[in-house]
Each structure stands twice: as C-alpha cells, then as structure tokens.
C-alpha cells in the first residue's frame, strides 16, 4: 500500500519544526551561519539572508529536504493582509521525472511508493536535477552524488511515520496511507469551502501521475510556488525523438540527392577540379 503525506497548509504556522526534525533525523549538515564577524567593521554582519519574508532556506536541495515557504499577501494600501505558510518537500510523484531520467537505476521506488536515491549507485551525472519539475534534487559536492527527501525511508519501513509529520505541532503534515489521507483531505476541503475559502484547492491528485505528498492550499498553487500544469519531461520524449529522427532522415535525403546525382553522371565530375 502506497504511503505518503498530506500537507494541510491552512493550519501551518511556519514554525519550521519540520525542517529541524528533517535535518536531525537524516543527519543533514547545517547551513552557513547568518552572521559573520567583519574584521574591518569589528562587528558581526548579516549574510545569507534571502530577504524573502521568514524564508532563509530559499530552495530545496541536497541538504535542505524541507523548506517552509512564506507568502505575504497585502492589499494595495496594506490595510488588509494575509500570511500563508506551506511546508514543501519532494512530492514522491507517481510519474517521477528524476526516476525516469536516471541512467544508472540509482533512483528507485520502494514498495511503499516513495522515490529513493541509492547513494552507492548514483554516479553524479546530474541528469535528474533538471528533470525534476519541482526543483527538488541537487548535487552534494561532499559526496559527489545527488540527494533529496527519502520520505524517511528507514523510518517508514520500520513502522514509523516521517520525522517531519511526527514533529509537526499543528498536525499540518500528516503521514499515512494515500487512500486515507485523501479522505481526510476531501473532508477538510469541504469544511474550508463551507467557511468561505472559495479558492481552497487540493494540489497533487492528478499532477505527475498523482503526488504521494499532496497539499491543501488556500490560494492558487502558483502562489505557493507550485507549477499548475506539470508536464513530466519524459512524456515529451516521443515527439522530441521523432523530430530528431525526421532531421536525420532529411539529411539522408539531402545525401541521396547530392551524392547520387553526381555519381550517376560521371562526365560532369571529370571537368570539375578545384
């Protein structure tokens, strides 16, 4: 039975406990410090701030498998405002661009439906990196291989939930079987619609063959940085290949008219010398 996570962003408080739990359980290295002592000024100066609300993670990558996004929405005169939070991670797509692209079989899907990178097989070719339509994977210079969220592969195969879901203080992230999570998501969506959140929607039922980590958003997915029309790269492979083959055939045709005509009229060629 496939397992996954449901992220109900409507009750996320942006505490980043999930990010901390993820780093702890998976022993991921810390990020560069945000202050550095400046020898000229003789005082600490701020570095590595994104300037984007409370988000200083910036992007998912080899050492950041979770990232809480902060979306500030204000009216023109700033009299009304809304602050949206969304804890983002690998979505463990059922049609996973990274897994499809991997030339070595390093990226596999386990029996629980999660997409997992075998570190001893990965060669660091980096093809999975642009093949992920969500920008999740990146290369670690330290290991020479790529890394991403494993859906706590070790925990879930031993009867535990994911570390981020375990630690989430509001229940925004829940771990479980996809079918049950979907039931809970639909119930919650109906409740929010009833409360007047007309824009509320669930993201991940149909995208990329269905996402094993899916979301309830209060606004359009684009607002949360999630692409609304996901095309898994490999679905474009047949047309791409066909056009390349057509190019090859066109050259074959050019060769046929160029080489054969000259070959069949030997008297022409004799006069022509460079």
């Amino acid at each position: 039975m496939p397992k996954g996570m449901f992220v109900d962003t409507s009750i996320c408080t942006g505490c980043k406990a999930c990010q901390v739990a993820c780093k702890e359980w998976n022993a991921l290295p810390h990020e560069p410090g945000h202050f550095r002592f400046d020898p000229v000024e003789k005082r600490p100066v701020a570095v590595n701030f994104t300037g984007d609300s409370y988000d200083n993670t910036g992007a998912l990558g080899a050492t950041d498998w979770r990232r809480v996004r902060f979306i500030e929405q204000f009216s023109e005169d700033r009299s009304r405002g809304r602050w949206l939070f969304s804890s983002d991670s690998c979505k463990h797509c059922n049609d996973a661009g990274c897994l499809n692209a991997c030339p070595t079989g390093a990226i596999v899907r386990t029996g629980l439906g999660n997409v997992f990178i075998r570190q001893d097989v990965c060669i660091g070719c980096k093809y999975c990196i642009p093949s992920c339509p969500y920008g999740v994977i990146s290369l670690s210079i330290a290991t020479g291989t790529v890394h991403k969220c494993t859906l706590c592969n070790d925990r879930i195969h031993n009867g535990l939930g994911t570390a981020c879901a375990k630690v989430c203080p509001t229940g925004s992230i829940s771990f479980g079987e996809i079918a049950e999570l979907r039931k809970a998501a639909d119930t919650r969506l109906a409740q929010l619609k009833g409360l007047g959140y007309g824009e509320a929607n669930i993201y991940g039922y149909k995208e990329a063959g269905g996402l094993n980590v899916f979301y309830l958003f209060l606004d359009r997915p684009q607002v949360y940085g999630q692409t609304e029309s996901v095309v898994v790269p490999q679905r474009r492979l047949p047309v791409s290949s066909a056009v390349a083959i057509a190019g090859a055939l066109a050259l074959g045709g050019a060769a046929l008219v160029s080489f054969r005509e000259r070959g069949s009229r030997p008297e022409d060629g004799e006069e022509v010398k460079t």
Partner: protein
Amino acid sequence: MNPEVHIPGWEWYYVAMYFFIAGISAGAYFIGTLAELFGGERHREISRTGFYIAFPLILLTPPLLIADLGRPERFWHLLFYAKSGIPYMNFQSPLSVGSWALLLFGAMAFLSFLDNLVSEGKLQSAPFAKAYSRIPRKWYAVVGSIAGFFVAGYTGVILNVTARPFWVATDPLVGALFIASAASTGAAAIYLVMSWRKKLTDPGLPGFDRFDRLSKVLELVLAVALVLIAGKWAAPLLRGLNAVMFWGGAVVLGTLFPLAAGWYATRAVEGRMPPERLATVMAVLVLFGGALLRISLLQAGQVQ
C-alpha cells in the same frame, strides 16, 4: 514552466565540448557512409577521410563525459547495474540509451578505421586481413551510422527532455538541430583533413559541397525556428554572451557567412568548388560555430 527547476551544473568545457566533438565524429562517419552508399567509388576518398576522423575523435569523448560526473570512478554504472553487474538500460532516459549508442558507435568507428588502414595497406598482417575482409564494410558502416545519428541527436534530446524552462520551450528542435550541426561540422572536418592530406581530388567533391550546403540550410532554419517557438523563454539566448555566441558565432559565422561566401564564389559555374583557401577558412568557421552552438544552448538553459 517552473523557474524553480534546478540547473544541473553541467560544465560547458566538458559537456558542450562532448556534444561538439561527438557531433563531428558522428557527422564525419555518417557522411562517409552515405557518400559511399549513394555515391560509390567516386566518393571513396571522402568516405575514407570520414572514417579516419570518426574513431580518433570519439576516443576523446568518454574522458570529457566522465570528468563531469560527481563520482567519475563509477562511470561503468551507466552500462551495468551496480547491484548485479548485469547490463542495464533505461529506455526513458536518453542518457542511458545514449551511453550504449556511444559504445556501439565507437565499436563500428573502430572497425571502419581498421578497414581504412587495411585497404590503404598501412596495416599488413595477412591472417588478420584475411579474417577481416570477410565482414562486409558497408554493413557495419550502416549500423555505425544509425548509432552515429543517435549520438549526434540524443545530446540535443537530453536537453529538451528536462524541465528547465529554456530547454522545454525549445523542445522538440534541439535534437534535430544538433544532427544538422553534426553534418556541417563533420563535413568541415572532412574537408580540412582532405586538404591537409592533399587529397582534394575526389570527383565526388561537388556533390559533397552540395550536401554540406543543404545541411547548413537545415541548421539555419532549425536555429531560427528554435528561437521563434521558444517565444519569451528564449530570453537567455537573446542577451549577453549567449547571444553573441549563438547569433554571432553559430548563426552568422558558422552557417550564414559560409553559405553566402560559398554561393558567391561559385555563382558563375554550376557544380564548381569554392577556392581551397576560402573553403578552408569557412570550414574552420563552421567548426567554431558548431562549438559555440553547443555552448550557447547548454548555457542558456543554465541561466539562473
């Protein structure tokens, strides 16, 4: 289109140079084969030169590919599954199928190279030559050419079949463009080597020149079409160094100028070759343009 899709960080001096050198090698090889298949003995020197070029150049490419890996010592995982040691191929991954195509192409290019040496009398070992002549040359040349077209084209398909906005927007033309460029750079390399070996005597040269022009026209059409279909996502190709490399290098110096100069020099007599000095300069420009084409399209997809 999701601008948050990460850039792979492929280094141009490894990956674009691999695309470029593999393109010349594959182009020289399939031109050599097509010239022999369609033109017969009259093109013997052209096809021989193509086979002389293909093998040494393709030997240069694996080190470039391997050097760009995060774990170079594991490169063999591309061909054999690391857990079991049995051959592995992922049909959805052009990079996986391309690795096998590269191996097949290299093997066929090696056979054709040996055949050249034997037929020119540079390799004289009676038992070897006897066994060798039993394999018909055209057979492996055809297999090698199909693999060669694949090697030339999959490098472009690799870029298109990702989620990076620029490469998505230029889908599905980069594969065909790289094949056309493989033909024009392969032809340029053949011309330069023939000129250097003082073998510009083939009666088939005008046909070769004509094929070369047709491939440049195809390349030009595809390059312009690629920018048009990309629309606003073509922006990385329209500014800065990428624009200089693509428009100035690949389009103007690499295709437009050689086409125009070749046409101008031969406009009076149909089927005449351009003068050797001009043709040599143009061939160098075509090679230069082919390299810049690969670099600019690789880098335009990796603009943050």
